[in-house]
C-alpha cells in the first residue's frame, strides 16, 4: 500500500480528477494549499503598493492505493497535470504502515479497495 501525495496547479484539478476517474482510481482527498517551488515571481500592484507574491495557490491530492494501483495513479496524474512550465508540481509516493476503513473495520488492501 502506498499514499500518493500530489501537489498540482489548481486550474489542472478538473483534468486530473477526470484522468483518475478514467484510471478507475477512487477514494481521494484534496486540500487547497499555498506553497513555493522554483517559480518565477509574480508582481501585483494595489494603489501604489507593489508586492511580490511569493506563495502560489496549489491543490494537494492524497490518494491511498494498493500496490498495483500505484503506477496507474501516478501515470494518470503525470499525464493530466503537466503544462511543461515551471510550477507543475510534484508527486510523492509514501509507504503506508496500516489502513483501516472506519465504517467496517476492514484493514489494509481491503480498506483501500473501493466498495463495489
Amino acid at each position: 500500500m502506498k499514499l500518493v501525495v500530489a501537489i498540482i496547479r489548481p486550474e489542472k484539478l478538473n483534468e486530473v480528477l477526470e484522468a483518475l476517474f478514467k484510471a478507475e482510481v477512487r477514494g481521494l482527498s484534496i486540500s487547497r494549499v499555498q506553497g513555493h517551488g522554483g517559480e518565477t515571481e509574480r508582481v501585483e500592484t494595489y494603489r501604489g503598493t507593489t508586492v511580490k507574491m511569493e506563495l502560489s495557490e496549489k491543490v494537494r491530492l492524497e490518494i491511498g492505493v494498493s500496490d498495483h494501483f500505484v503506477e496507474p495513479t501516478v501515470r494518470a496524474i503525470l499525464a493530466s497535470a503537466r503544462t511543461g512550465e515551471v510550477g507543475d508540481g510534484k508527486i510523492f509516493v509514501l509507504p503506508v504502515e496500516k489502513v483501516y476503513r472506519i465504517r467496517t473495520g476492514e484493514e489494509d488492501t481491503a480498506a483501500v479497495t473501493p466498495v463495489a
Partner: protein
Amino acid sequence: MKNLRLPAFLLALLAGLAFAEDPEFSAADTAWMLVATGLVLLMTPALAFFYGGLVRSKNVLNTMMMSFSALGFVAVAWALLGYSLALSGEGNFIGDLRYIFLNNVGLENKGAIASITIPHLLWMVFQGTFAIITAALVSGAVVERMRFPAFLLFITLWSLVVYAPLAKWVWGGGFLADLGAWDFAGGTVVHINAGIAALVAAMVLGVRKDFGRQAILPHSVPFVLLGAAFLWFGWFGFNAGSAWAASTSAGLALANTILAPAATIVAWSLIDLFRTGRVTAVGLATAIVVGLVVITPAAAFVSPLFALVMGAIGAFPSYYVLLWRARSGLDDSLDVFAAHGVAGMTGAILTGVFAQESVNGLFNGLIAGNPAQVLIQALAVLIAVAYSALATFVLLKLVGAITPLRASAKEEGLGMDVTQHGEEAYTSGEGAILVRSEAPLPAGKPKPAGGTD
C-alpha cells in the same frame, strides 16, 4: 425639419405641453433629468456587480473592469464624437459633425434633434449614459477570455460605429423613426443591439477553454442580486428619464418599470417551480433584468395592466433560450443574448401589440386595432439585428487584426485578474512581500504571470 418631427412631437405630447416650436426652459424638467442621468450612470457599476458575481472568483475583477472602463472610454468617445454622430443633423443614417468635441453644446435648451426644455449639455450627457451601459452589456459574452486591451479598443470603436448609427436611426430622426417604429427607452438601440453584438462576439472569440468540460459556477450570487437591485433602481432613470421631462409620461414609465419586472419575477418563479420544484436566486435576478428589458421600448406607450402582461409574457422566450443556450455549443458566457437580445425583441414586438393611443397620445398597436404596427416593429427589429451583427463582426475582425482578441489558454487558466490587471479580488496577503520603492520594478511592467504556480 422632417427629421425633427417625431421626437419633437413625442416630447411635446408626452410632456403634456401644448405643441410649440420653441419650448421654454423648465427647471422642473431639468431637476428630474439631473437625477435621471445619475440613475442611469449607476446602472453601469451595477452591471459590474451583476456580471462580476456570475463569473469565477479568479475573473471577477476583469469582468467588473469591463463595465467600469466603459464609464471612461465610451463616455469620452461619446463626448468627443459619438454624440455628434448619433444625435445631430438632418441625415437619415448618420449625424453630422456639428457637435464634434462638444462644439455648440451649451446650456441653452436646444438640441439639433429635439426641442428640449433642459440644457443641451445635460441632454448630451443623459444620452451618453445610454451609450456607456450598452457597450458594457456586450462584455458579458466575452468575459473570462478576452484580452483587456483588445476589449477597450473594441467597445470604444463599437460605441461609435454600431451604437451611434442605431441611435440616429431610432431616436435621431433617422429612417427607422420615419418608418413609424417606436422605441421609448432603448429596446432596439440598447438591448437588441447589445444582445446581438454579444452573440456575434461570443462566436468570433470562441468558447472558453473549460466550457462544456467543467462546471463553471457563479462565485458570488449575492453580488448578482445586488447588481440586479441597483440595475432596477437605475432603470427608473433609464425609462422614466426617457420622457425627457418631469411629465405624466415619466410617471407612467416609472410605474410600468416597477410592474413589468414584478410580473416577470412571478412568471419566471412559476416556470422554475413547475420545472424543478425550486426557485433559484440567479434565475430571479435574471427575471428582473428580463422584465426591465421587455418594458423598456414600451415604457410610456402601454397601460400599467398591459405592462404586467408584457412582463409575464416576456419571461417565456428568455427562459427557454437560456435553457437552450446552456446546452448548445455557444459560449455567450453571461447570456447577454437571452437576457437582452431576446427580451429586447419580445418587448419591441409586444410594443406593437399593446400600445394604445388613449394611453400614449401617439399611436395604436394591435389590440387597439392597428395590426400593421406589429409588422413595423418587427421590421425595425430585423434591420437592427442585421446591422448590429454585421458591423460588430467586421469591427471584431478589425480589432483582431490590430491586437489579439483572446488571452492564451494559460492566462485563461490562471485567471484574467492576475494576468490582465496584476491584482486579485480575494487575497489574504499571505506570502506577499512588499517591494520597496528603491528597488525598481523589472522594466516597469510585471513579468508575465506565467510560471508562477
